[in-house]
C-alpha cells in the first residue's frame, strides 16, 4: 500500500502537473476507485443506474436512436471544422469548397464525412421512427415523445435541405430552385413564404445567408434543446418499451441490470462500428460537386434532393396544389395524430402489434409494391384526365379527381383488411400506415432512379 503513495517533493514536473489536475490519483488505489465512481456517475446523469435486461436486446431498437446521436455528434464536429473554411457568399462559396478539397489537408475527407453523416442520419431517423411505430412505443406515456421525435425529424430534414444549397454548384442551385419553387403553390401565403425564405425574388446572396444561418445556428440550437428533452422523456417513461411476444402479458418480472457496463458497452460498440462505416464510405465515395451554379442554365434533368424525389414524383401525377400542399399536410397531420388515436389495445413492446398484425403488414407492403408501380405507369401512358375532361380546370382533372380515387382506394383497403382479418383498429391503422409508407418509398425510388431526361420514365 505504502509504495503507491509518493511524496510531492519526489515528483518531477509532469507528475506534479498531473496530480494537480487529478489530486485523488496521488492517493491509494481505493481513491482511484472513487474517481472511477465519480466519472461513472457523470455518465449516470444521462443514463439510469439500472436498465431492464430485456430492453438490451439488439433487435428491440437496432441501436437506431444511439446511431442518430452519434451521427449528430459527427455532424457537429465536422460542421464546426467546415465553418472555418466555408464562405457563405455566392462569389466565394463554390471557390471555398474547391479550396477545401484541393488545398486543405483532409478537407475532402471532412466534407465527405459531413455529407454522408447528414444523408445517413436522415435514413437512420426514418428507420428509428419506423421501429418506434412497429413496436408500439408511442402509446401512453410515450405519446408526446413521438411528437418531439417528429419535430426533430423535420429539423433534420430542414438541415439537409439548407445544407444542400451551400456548395453553390449546379446540383445545389437548381435543386433548391425547385424546392423553393414548390412553396409558390401553398395557397394564400405561398408567394410571401417563398420570398421570405429566398430573401427576395430569386436565389442569390440573401438566400445563401439565410440558409447558412438556419443550417449552422437554428437547427443545431433546436437539436440541442430537443434531443435532451427526447431522452429525458424516455427516462420518465421508465426506459424503453419492454419487448414481449404477442402472447405474453404486459407485466414483466423485474430483472434489472446495472447500466454500466451492460448498456454503455453495447452503445459504444454500435457507435464505433457506425463511425468506422462512415469513415470507410467517406474514404471511398466523394461528396458530389458539379460545375459552379449558373442561374441561366438548368441542367436536364433537374432533380430535387433524393429525400424530396417522392414529392417530385407526386408532382408529375397530381396538380401542384395537391402534390405540394394538401397531400403532405394531410400526411403530417396523420403522423402527428398517430399516438392520439383511440386504440383497442396497448401493444407497446410487441413487434407489429400481433401475429395477425405481422401478416397484415406483409399484405399491405405487398399491395403497395404492386399497386404503386402500376399506378405510376398507368398515369404515364394511359390515364389523361385533362384530355378526357376537356371542360374541367386542371385543379379538378389533375387534383381533386385523382386524389379522390386514391383516397377511395385507401379507404377500401382499410375496410377490406379489417373485415378479412377481423382485426383490431391497431392492426388496421398499422396496415394503412405501411401501405402509405411503402408507396412513398416506391415513389422516391422511382424519382431517384427511374426518371431521366425531361422526367420521362426510364430503365436505369
Amino acid at each position, binding site marked *: 500500500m505504502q509504495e503507491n503513495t509518493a511524496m510531492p517533493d519526489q515528483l518531477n514536473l509532469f507528475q506534479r502537473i498531473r496530480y494537480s489536475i487529478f489530486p485523488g490519483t496521488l492517493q491509494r488505489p481505493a481513491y482511484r476507485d472513487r474517481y472511477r465512481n465519480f466519472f461513472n456517475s457523470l455518465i449516470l446523469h444521462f443514463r439510469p443506474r439500472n436498465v431492464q435486461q430485456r430492453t438490451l436486446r439488439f433487435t428491440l431498437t437496432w441501436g437506431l436512436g444511439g446511431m442518430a446521436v452519434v451521427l449528430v455528434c459527427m455532424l457537429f464536429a465536422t460542421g464546426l471544422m467546415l465553418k472555418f473554411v466555408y464562405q457563405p457568399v455566392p462569389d466565394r462559396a463554390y471557390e471555398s469548397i474547391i479550396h477545401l478539397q484541393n488545398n486543405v489537408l483532409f478537407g475532402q475527407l471532412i466534407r465527405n464525412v459531413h455529407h454522408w453523416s447528414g444523408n445517413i442520419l436522415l435514413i437512420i431517423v426514418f428507420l428509428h421512427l419506423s421501429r418506434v411505430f412497429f413496436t408500439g412505443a408511442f402509446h401512453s406515456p410515450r405519446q408526446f415523445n413521438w411528437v418531439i421525435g417528429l419535430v426533430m425529424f423535420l429539423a433534420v430534414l430542414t438541415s439537409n435541405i439548407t445544407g444542400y444549397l451551400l456548395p453553390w454548384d449546379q446540383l445545389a442551385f437548381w435543386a433548391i430552385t425547385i424546392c423553393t*419553387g414548390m412553396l409558390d403553390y401553398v395557397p394564400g401565403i405561398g408567394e410571401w413564404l417563398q420570398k*421570405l425564405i429566398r430573401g427576395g425574388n430569386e436565389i442569390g446572396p440573401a438566400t445563401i445567408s439565410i440558409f447558412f444561418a438556419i443550417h449552422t445556428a437554428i437547427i443545431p440550437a433546436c437539436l440541442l434543446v430537443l434531443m435532451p428533452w427526447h431522452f429525458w422523456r424516455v427516462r420518465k417513461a421508465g426506459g424503453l418499451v419492454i419487448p414481449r411476444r404477442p402472447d405474453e402479458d404486459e407485466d414483466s418480472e423485474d430483472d434489472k441490470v446495472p447500466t454500466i457496463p451492460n448498456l454503455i458497452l453495447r452503445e459504444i460498440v454500435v457507435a464505433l462500428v457506425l463511425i468506422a462505416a462512415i469513415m470507410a464510405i467517406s474514404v471511398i465515395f466523394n461528396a458530389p460537386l458539379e460545375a459552379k451554379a449558373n*442561374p*441561366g*442554365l*438548368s441542367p436536364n434533368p*433537374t432533380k430535387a434532393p433524393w429525400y424530396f424525389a417522392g414529392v417530385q414524383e407526386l408532382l408529375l401525377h397530381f396538380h401542384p396544389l395537391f402534390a405540394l400542399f394538401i397531400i403532405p399536410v394531410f400526411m403530417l397531420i396523420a403522423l402527428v395524430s398517430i399516438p392520439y388515436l383511440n386504440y383497442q389495445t396497448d401493444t407497446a413492446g410487441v413487434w407489429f402489434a400481433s401475429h395477425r398484425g405481422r401478416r397484415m403488414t406483409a399484405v399491405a407492403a405487398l399491395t403497395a409494391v404492386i399497386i404503386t408501380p402500376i399506378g405510376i405507369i398507368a398515369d404515364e401512358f394511359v390515364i389523361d384526365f385533362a384530355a378526357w375532361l376537356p371542360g374541367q380546370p386542371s385543379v379538378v382533372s389533375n387534383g381533386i379527381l385523382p386524389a379522390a380515387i386514391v383516397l377511395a382506394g385507401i379507404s377500401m383497403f382499410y375496410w377490406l383488411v379489417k373485415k378479412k382479418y377481423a382485426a383490431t383498429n391497431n392492426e388496421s391503422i398499422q396496415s394503412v400506415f405501411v401501405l402509405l409508407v411503402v408507396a412513398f418509398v416506391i415513389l422516391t425510388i422511382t424519382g431517384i432512379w427511374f426518371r431521366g431526361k425531361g*422526367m420521362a420514365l426510364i430503365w436505369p
Partner: protein
Amino acid sequence: MKSEAAPNRRRFLNIFWIILGGVAVAEFVAVAFAFLRPAKSKTPGENTDLIFTAGAVERFRPNSVTAFVRGKFYLARLEDGGFLAISRTCTHLGCSVPWMEKEMKFACPCHGSAFDITGNVLEAPAPRALDIYPITIENRIVKVDTRNPIKRSAFQVEQVVYHKKKA
C-alpha cells in the same frame, strides 16, 4: 376585508404580468418578422441598372426571339412586328427555359413544360404563361424594365408593344 383583498390584488398582478409578457413576446415576434422580411430599397432611382436598353427596332427580325442573358429575359418580336419581353423563369418551379430556334418554342428542361413565342403554355405541367416585363419604345429604341415581372395566366393581344400605332 384586507385578507380578501390581498389574493385579489395578487391575482390581478399575476394576470397583469402575464399579459405584459405576452405583449413583449408579440413585439419580439413582430420585430423578428419585420427584420427577416426581404428589404425594399427606399432610394428612388436605384435599380435603374435593371432597365435594359435592348437596341434599335430594326435589329430584331419579325418572328424571332433574342436572349438577354444579363437581363434574364427574352425579347420576342412577333410576326406582326410587335414586341414582348418574356421572363426566362419557368412558371412551374422556376427553372430557366431555353429558346429552341428550330422548334420555335421555349422548352423547360426540368419537367418538360413548353411555351410558344408569346409565352403561352404549349405543354403542362406549367400552370400559366411565362411572365412578361414592361417595354417602352422611344425613338425606335426598345427598353425593357426588369424590376417587376408581370404575372399573367395567358397571352393577350394587349400585352404586345408596337413601335408605331397600328393602322
